[in-house]
């Protein structure tokens, strides 16, 4: 992989900044090489590769206001133009919310176990994916195509530098495979489901596991039936619950709190948010987080942060600027910008150690649901970008799942689940099974009472 030369980049930026009378600056630079393949019934459909490089520079003007510019042109002229653009933009910097260097931009970083893999090459990826597609289609006669599939590998590098000498650098290789199969039976609607796997290299990908899961999930949906509209107790799969919490992560986001678009406020810390046995932490350093970074866009070290403990809101995710506004330390969740974005890394969700109630609800439900309307297992949610109103707390989302009734599980034809996130967090009745590591976090199955389900008539 081509390697970014941080000292040379610093030297060039320092020269250009000095020429433009810019005394204070920082930057984020990234480069990557990607290769990916898609197949269609045994043939290569598309093979792609990309070499990308980009840089974002921030400068502080004489009044202490910040401006920013991004470019993919890393020539001398491009860098000079970017610095000039950032200088121009700084005239419109926000004096009420001016970012500074993170006080932790030179703090020690945790070393991550991220083995670097040599790329296998696109033709090997193609062979592997064709094989995976064939194996998947061979699993069941109703599996006709795998319309959405891909096998990709990536090597990337990113740098954070600032004019006070901070220098962060990370190299990473990752690989991914996804297989979404389509099943069709005469006189029935087509059904679709899939699976994804991530690893640090294509040779480490669990392709067999991905094939198996995609086949199992798609086949399981073949025997479907409509679900009557009503209120149900629902069991969220780890992936579905993590998706939902991720979509409402503005609850924990200090930037959103300061902007007035979060359901939380400054006074929410220490207040009850959920049932007293729920814990949520953000832990980008978890070994299950493939592609983890040990520093954020401002150079702050990534760390584990408790967000909810015993149902009580404990902390917000912060950038340098929001942390300063709250009088706390940055938490390592920032991007890089004139207005710095804040976001979660990787959630850990489960029962609060020592708290009771996480299983009591399940026992009560198990006793009471004999002969009831059944239990809805929500396997995966979709359309989160459209069906979640984070600032209002409401959601209405289509899902794939099963109705569990009378000892049988039947795939649900088409349905949406709707509710309010705060009500949902207080309607959790328990967790089931071991927490599962997924691409978005760690979570067990989560039982929630009284959610509204609309079935398609």
């Amino acid at each position: 992989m081509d390697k970014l030369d941080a000292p040379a980049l610093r030297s060039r930026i320092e020269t250009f900044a000095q020429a433009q009378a810019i005394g204070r600056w920082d930057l984020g630079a990234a480069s990557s090489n990607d290769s990916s393949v898609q197949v269609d019934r045994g043939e290569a459909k598309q093979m792609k590769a990309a070499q990308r490089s980009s840089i974002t520079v921030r400068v502080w003007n004489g009044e202490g206001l910040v401006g920013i510019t991004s470019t993919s042109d890393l020539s001398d002229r491009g860098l000079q133009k970017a610095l000039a653009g950032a200088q121009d933009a700084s005239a419109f910097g926000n004096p009420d919310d001016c970012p500074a260097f993170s006080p932790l931009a030179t703090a020690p970083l945790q070393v991550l176990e991220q083995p670097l893999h040599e790329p296998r090459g696109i033709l090997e990826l193609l062979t592997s994916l064709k094989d995976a597609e064939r194996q998947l289609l061979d699993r069941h006669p109703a599996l006709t195509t795998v319309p959405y599939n891909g096998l990709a590998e990536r090597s990337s590098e990113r740098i954070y530098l600032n004019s006070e000498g901070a220098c962060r650098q990370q190299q990473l290789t990752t690989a991914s495979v996804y297989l979404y199969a389509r099943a069709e039976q005469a006189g029935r609607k087509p059904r679709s489901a899939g699976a994804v796997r991530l690893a640090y290299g294509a040779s480490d990908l669990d392709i067999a596991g991905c094939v198996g899961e995609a086949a199992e999930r798609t086949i399981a949906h073949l025997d479907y039936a409509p679900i009557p509209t009503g209120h149900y107790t629902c069991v969220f799969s780890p992936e579905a619950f993590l998706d939902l919490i991720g979509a409402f992560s503005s609850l924990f986001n200090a930037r959103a709190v300061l902007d007035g678009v979060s359901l939380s406020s400054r006074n929410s810390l220490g207040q009850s948010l959920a049932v007293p046995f729920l814990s949520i932490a953000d832990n980008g350093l978890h070994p299950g987080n493939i592609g983890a970074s040990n520093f954020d866009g401002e150079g702050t070290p990534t760390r584990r942060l408790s967000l909810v403990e015993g149902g009580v809101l404990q902390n917000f995710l912060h950038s340098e600027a929001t942390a300063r506004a709250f009088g706390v330390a940055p938490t390592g969740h920032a991007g890089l910008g004139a207005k710095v974005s804040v976001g979660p890394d990787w959630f850990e969700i489960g029962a609060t150690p020592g708290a009771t109630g996480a299983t009591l609800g399940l026992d009560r439900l198990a006793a009471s649901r004999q002969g009831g309307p059944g239990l809805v297992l929500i396997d995966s949610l979709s359309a989160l970008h459209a069906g979640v109103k984070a600032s209002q707390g409401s959601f209405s989302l289509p899902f794939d799942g099963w109705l569990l009734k009378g000892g049988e599980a039947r795939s649900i034809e088409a349905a949406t689940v709707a509710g309010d996130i705060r009500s949902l967090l207080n309607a959790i009745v328990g967790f089931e099974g071991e927490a599962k590591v997924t691409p978005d976090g760690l979570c067990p199955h989560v039982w929630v009472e009284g959610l509204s389900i609309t079935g398609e008539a």
Partner: protein
Amino acid sequence: MVVTLSPSSASPSGLADHFDQAWRSPLESLLGLGSAAGADLVEVFLERTDHLGVLAEQERITSVSPAFGTGAGIRVFRGERDGFVSTNDLSEAGLRRALEQALGMLGLAAPSLANPAPSGFNGLATLRDFGASKAPWLGACPSLAEATTRLLEGTDQLERQGAHLQARRGSYARDWQEVLVAASDGTFARDIRLHQSLGLTVLAADGEHRASAGRRYGSSGRPEHLAQWDVEASAQEVCSSAGTMLYSDYVEACQVPVVLANRFGGVIFHEACGHLLETTQVERGTTPFADQVGELIAHEAVTAIDEGLSDGAFGSLSMDDEGMEPQRTVLIENGVLRRFLSDRAGERRTGHERTGSGRRQSHAFAAASRMRNTYIAAGPHSPAELIASVEKGLYCKAMGGGSVGPTGQFNFAVEEGYLIEDGQLTKPVKGATLIGEAKEVMPRISMCANDLELAAGFCGSVSGSIFVTVGQPHIKVDSITVGGR
């Protein structure tokens, strides 16, 4: 290898500064190499971009985000297969490296420059320069100072016209793009594109009641767009919507007739049906309409069109990203499926003739068949007639986003809805979601009104996020599932 990010690695010849005839020779060399290697077709897409994003919140400008860049996408076809490589490196060496990588994907190798093999490539045609008259556009766009002033007028108008507003935002984006397309079939074309969009959003809160509303206004090829923006009317529309929805009740789940308002109501046709009429879906086998050209797939009241020609519309373009002029494509005529939208790959793989619909977000994406300005044509009725025809149903005045699953099921949020009772609009309701399948819903669009209007939007799909227009008159769907509480 260590990349020192020196000037020599980016644009040694200075060609990246402007796309013109000077590129003919290096591009012909590249295309000749690819053809000599055995490719059926080689296409090079070069791009320069200049972006400005501005965000105003309450009384402050909180973000100014300029960005600029260059890049190339090289695509090689052999039979129905293709290889695609993108790079930020526009040097001759960088482009050759990308070509060789793309050829290698198909098991081809470029001959050496010292020993060139014969090629079927006959050189590029005369440059078709759609951008020649557009050179002044970027300079004619509003300055940063003008843009920030207009946005602050917007958030000020929101404050004046709204109530219980907890957050007020105005956003402006200006995307300028210069492209040069060259292909081994002789295609040689240049264009300049300018897209501007404005958005106003509010969050209203009063105790436990919350409502958000937003509108986006977009144009193409109109540097004066921001100056001509009717700030007051936009703010009034947004505040009215948020104010109406703030205290509204959640809708109950039901199966009822629905009347969808014009303009952005067209997002449902775009998502639920339009995507299924792209050849990318035919290639994947994911459209139920693949073999139904000439057959009735919708109610006879429905005629649907996709075109890239409407003056100033967000999805309009002088040429597509494969160098072809856009067409007016009648997709559905009186309910009968007429055409699919097709690009180079679609034509090769499905046989559907190209329609000038090859589009991509940037050089980093291979072009794919995508929509441009897509709308249902006007019908004979007045909007009031549609509402009057419904005894009990839902009026969807403003639609939010939505999605379509791989088996054609769609799901759309209703941002502003009203119950229809005995042919009259009654109380506002929130939380409604429209759920269905295109194949089942299209035959249920039984009435189209006479008030066709278009609305700007962004469409994300296989070739990235692109500028599009959706549109329709008021339409009535006889029965649809409404998700609620």
